[in-house]
């Protein structure tokens, strides 16, 4: 199945903005996002990240995040979901953009992994 992309940020507008950017280059890729806490504050929300993962059309997901607690929350959700979730420690925007462009272009997962490797910064 085609890869889907999940974007998790500490801020709702960042997640929304990154999603908008990604959609430009990858209109056919399933991209879902979560930003901020349940109350719209700065932080991470288990419920919002869980929803982004569950609502993505794909069952195989590459997840990109901005800072540590978004990663830890992604990890907790990934342990609970039945989906195949991979958390990518790449530069947030560059990594997500690269993955989306390559999925849109029909590249295979192994080729995408190769391109993401040099973007890993965390």
């Amino acid at each position: 199945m085609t890869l889907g992309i999940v974007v998790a940020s500490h801020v709702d507008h960042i997640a929304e903005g990154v999603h908008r950017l990604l959609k430009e280059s990858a209109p056919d890729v399933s991209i879902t996002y979560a930003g901020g806490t349940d109350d719209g504050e700065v932080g991470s929300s288990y419920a919002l990240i869980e929803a982004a993962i569950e609502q993505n059309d794909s069952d195989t997901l590459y997840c990109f995040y901005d800072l540590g607690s978004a990663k830890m929350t992604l990890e907790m959700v990934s342990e609970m979901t039945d989906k195949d979730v991979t958390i990518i420690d790449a530069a947030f925007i560059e990594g997500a953009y690269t993955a989306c462009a390559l999925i849109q272009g029909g590249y295979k997962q192994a080729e995408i992994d190769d391109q993401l490797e040099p973007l890993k910064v965390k």
Partner: protein
Amino acid sequence: MELTHEQAKRWLLNFHQKVTDNKAYLSELDQAIGDGDHGSNMARGTEAVKDKLGSVTEDSLEAVLKQAAMALISKVGGASGPLYGSAFMAMAKTAKETSELSTLIEAGLDGIKHRGKADVGDKTMIDMWQPVTSALHEDDLTEVTIDQALEDVKPLKAKKGRASYVGERSMGALDPGAVSSGYLFTALIEEVLA
């Protein structure tokens, strides 16, 4: 010693009170080496724990710990949410097998290490949980253990989390997660061990 579900509830309510009373102090500590939201995040999280505990009707230690975990995971918002949440989730799982206190706290410690990929000496909450776990195994957890752990955490250089960005500057400062964990264990002493 065994932990009962009533003791666990009193322990968590006491923790909520201590965090709420010291909310400004925890944020002040976090301001120095992190992003300054530990007090408000933990106050929000433990308030949610308090609310959730009201809905636990069954006499089950596992249920109490699990509801606390879910509240912390859902409501804290910062890194301490997944960390405290993983600790209580690990304790809840362990409570299916045993209610022995030192075994439960050790499971919590392992949960934090797993989630944060940190260890002793990284200047994190682990530097409180580890000595407390050791003291519980020796049947010797007192305020002295907690005070000593806080003294020991001060000179460390942060290697994990936001505080690691300021590197050397973290030396001499208290770690807010170690301090809030200290409140957790002072609450444990007051409600369970005293």
